[in-house]
C-alpha cells in the first residue's frame, strides 16, 4: 500500500469498514510512515472540528411561527 493509496482509505478505516487484510496493511503502513500518520491524525481532527460547527438555523420569523404553532397545536 502506497501513501497515495492509503489517504483514499481513511474514511473506510475510521468506519471500520476495511476488509481484514486491507486493514492490516493499512495499520502496518501507518506504523512505519510518519507522513500518513500525520494525515490520518489530521482527518480525525477534521472530523472533530466539523462536529464543533453548528449549522445555520431557521430565520427568526419561521422559528417564531413554529414555536407558536407548537404552543397552539391541539392535543388530547
Amino acid at each position, binding site marked *: 500500500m502506497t501513501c497515495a493509496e492509503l489517504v483514499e482509505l481513511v474514511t473506510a478505516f475510521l468506519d471500520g*469498514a476495511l476488509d481484514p487484510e486491507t486493514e492490516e496493511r493499512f495499520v502496518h503502513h501507518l506504523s512505519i510512515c510518519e507522513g500518513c500518520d*500525520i494525515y490520518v491524525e489530521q482527518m480525525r481532527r477534521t472530523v472533530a472540528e466539523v462536529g464543533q460547527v453548528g*449549522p445555520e438555523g431557521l430565520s427568526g420569523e419561521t422559528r417564531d411561527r413554529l414555536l407558536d404553532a407548537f404552543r397552539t*397545536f391541539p392535543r388530547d
Partner: protein
Amino acid sequence: MPSDDVLVAGLRAGDEETFACLLNGWSGSMLRLARTFVSTAASAEEVVQDTWLAVFQGIGRFEGRSSLQTWVYRILVNVARRRGTHEQRTVPWTSLLPDEGPTVDPSRFRGAEDPYPGGWRAFPERWPTTENEVLAHEVRATVAAAIEKLPPRQQVVLTLRDIDGQSADDVCVLLGISTANQRVILHRARAAVRGHLERYFTTAGAES
C-alpha cells in the same frame, strides 16, 4: 440533547422547552438536507416548517423503531421530495456516480519513475493545537466556510455523519444511497475540509 424517551414525552405533552431544544439542535441540518431537494433557501425553510408541523401531527404514532431524529429526517425527505418534484429540482441521489479522482493532489506524491512511487514528497506539516480561543474561533470559521463550499450532496452527508452523528447505515437508508457511495461522498467532503484547514494552518494561522 436529552434521550429520545424524554424528547418524545416532551413533544407529546406540548413542552415548549423540549421543542425549542430540537428546533435549535436540528433545524440547521434539516435546512441543509432540504436544500438538496428544492431550489431556494426560502423553499427549504418551508420544507423544514412543514416537516415540524407533520411531526406535531404524527408524534402520537411514533413507535421508537428508529431514533427520533431519523424518523423526523425521513418525514423531511418525503416532504422535500414532494416539493422538489413540483419545482422540478431533485438531486438524483441514486443515479449519481460518486465523484472521481484522488482527494489529495497527486503532485504531493512521488511519481512512477521514483524509487518510492506513491510516497509523500514531503510529509504534511503538523498542525498547532487550538487551545487559544482566538485561534479556535478562526478554525471554526474556516471549517464553516469550507462546508459551505462543498457540493450539496457532500454537505448533507458530512452534516448528517459528522455534525448530527448519525450512523452510516442510517444515512444510507435516509438518502437511498449505497454504503460505498455514502463513504465516497463522506470521504471527499472530509478531505476537502481538511485541505482548507491545511491551507489555513500553513498560511494565515501559522504564527502560533
